[in-house]
């Protein structure tokens, strides 16, 4: 339906648009602009002398490797979260009865009620030298020595990240599966599709927006995370947020802003690509006939 747009509607749209600009875009624009200024040792602040020093700083001291490894961690975590969340969402939506699905949903939601700090911390008690897993392995005689790499390693970090951010993948997937008419799956079956064909030709294509939304949510959360790395990583383990914190501590603002700008650019790029390829916006459309 297209109707001639009344001027009143654009007037009504103005205040929320301004609010979105002020709250969302303005701070981001400031970050980008300030990343090109220079640090002033006299004032400990920045001055508007155009400079690429912040960006040059990224190339020093292996800072760029932190950005890369953060993106790798974010990709890996998001991917693994999807691998776990998809069958979970499938089970909740298609297999479980009412009671069981409510129970499963509750189990997924509960982590939201504890802080990231406590959640990460509890993994230390599970993965540590005297933790649950090592104790079990020793008791069963599977290992003779506790496995050190379980904790304070990238393995531990990714486990912690998955545990923290799994719900962010599960809920968009559930949302997108709820929008899939179950008779479509019956129809595919009726036409000769087995389970996997049903999954790949009907369910997956129809939940792509949920898959990408889940991926993006987890990805962004991981890029912004620090607790899991600080709690579960090895000596001096880093991630973008930790690095920004380090840099802010010595008042090197242009560098902090430059790092932020790069990360923001990657995330915006992902959103744009995702929207183009997977129709992210369709997750929020009303598709009911």
């Amino acid at each position, binding site marked *: 339906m297209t109707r001639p747009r009344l001027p009143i509607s654009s007037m009504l749209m103005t205040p929320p648009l301004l609010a979105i600009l002020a709250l969302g875009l303005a701070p981001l624009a400031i970050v980008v602009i300030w990343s090109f200024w220079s640090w002033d040792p006299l004032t400990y602040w920045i001055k508007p002398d155009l400079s690429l020093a912040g960006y040059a700083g990224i190339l020093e001291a292996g800072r760029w490797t932190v950005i890369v490894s953060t993106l790798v961690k974010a990709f890996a975590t998001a991917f693994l979260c999807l691998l776990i969340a998809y069958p979970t969402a499938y089970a909740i939506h298609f297999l479980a009865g009412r009671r069981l699905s409510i129970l499963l949903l509750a189990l997924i939601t509960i982590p939201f009620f504890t802080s990231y700090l406590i959640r990460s911390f509890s993994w230390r008690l599970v993965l540590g030298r005297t933790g649950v897993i090592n104790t079990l392995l020793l008791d069963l005689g599977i290992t003779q020595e506790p496995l050190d790499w379980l904790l304070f390693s990238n393995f531990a970090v990714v486990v912690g990240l998955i545990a923290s951010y799994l719900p962010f993948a599960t809920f968009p997937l559930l949302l997108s599966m709820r929008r899939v008419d179950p008779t*479509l799956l019956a*129809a595919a*079956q*009726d*036409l000769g*599709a087995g389970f996997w064909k049903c999954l790949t030709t009907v369910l997956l294509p129809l939940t792509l927006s949920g898959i990408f939304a889940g991926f993006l949510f987890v990805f962004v959360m991981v890029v912004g995370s620090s607790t899991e790395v600080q709690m579960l990583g090895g000596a001096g383990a880093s991630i973008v947020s930790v690095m920004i914190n380090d840099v802010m501590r010595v008042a090197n603002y242009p560098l902090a802003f430059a790092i932020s700008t790069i990360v923001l650019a990657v995330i915006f790029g992902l959103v744009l690509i995702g929207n183009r390829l997977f129709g992210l916006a369709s997750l929020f459309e009303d*598709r009911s006939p």
Partner: protein
Amino acid sequence: MAISIQIDHVSREYGPVKALDDVSIDIKAGEFFTLLGSSGCGKSSLLKLIGGFDRQTSGRVCFDGKDVGDLPANQRPVNTVFQNLALFPHMSVAQNVGYGLRLKGLSGSRLQVKIDDALDLVELTGFGARDVNLLSGGQRQRVALARALVMEPGILLLDEPLTGLDERLRQQMRDEFGRLHKRTGATFILVTHNQDEALSLSDRMAVMHKGRIEQMDVPARFFETPANAFVARFVGIDTLLHPQAVLVSGNHGAATIAGQTVQVRIAGPADPAASVVAIRPDRLFLAPPNTDAALRLCVSGTTFRGLHRDLRLAFGDGQTLMIAIDADMDIGELAIGQEVAIGLKPDAAVLISR
């Protein structure tokens, strides 16, 4: 190739609820068979068992005599037109229609030819590239039909396929089903709650109620001899009178209703407490006042129906019967309480179980 279906003492229980209660049906190969009933009667449950989407609690489902209990839906020679059509929204018309064939390994021009033929069959020639989400209701219906028929199924299941269409389209699609049934020769099973659909299409039909089959027969028999009061009402025989006494002599007898005698065909128990007299409205007529063997009833109301008028007439004990008369029939003013004579054509009344 058309396939015959044997439903053999099948029950389907959900906890204490019996969706199907010891149902047995033999459907002949190539038959157009209709399951008729109101919602919750078990007709869709039965369809699911045939389609392979569910499993019976007891009994057997056989195709051409072979038990298919262990055959999953995707391996059965059955295709379904779903109530909501279930067209794949992320595929074009041609992709929808070709879906099952691609799974079978067809591709290229062989696939294309089959898709085109199927679209021709449902009169959607040239619609292949269209977005299914942008079609009209009737067109979507045809796509769903084509998608099922292109598989050349031995059995086609139609699950309330006409619900949601307007009256004109319903008529049109109903004719389409009949035509396609003849063209393909497959066994068609239609599930519906609409008796018009059932009567006009079916070779045979079954009326279901509370998980059981009340009657299974060719359509005409439902009017000649409804199995019981429920079936009679379901097919539109609303006049069901409680007799005071029944006299039986062979196939025929006489029932006494409010002191008046009605000649009946006997198709139910002679016990007046266990039977009713079903009277076909199309076999009643207004008789001249002093006709013998006519019922004498009092007018209790008239309703204008456009092409005809419904005349409601009461017996002395308050039971009523309905008779349709031509809207322009010149019978003068009929006052409420006025007595009229009603004649019965042969075989107008039948005694059936309650």
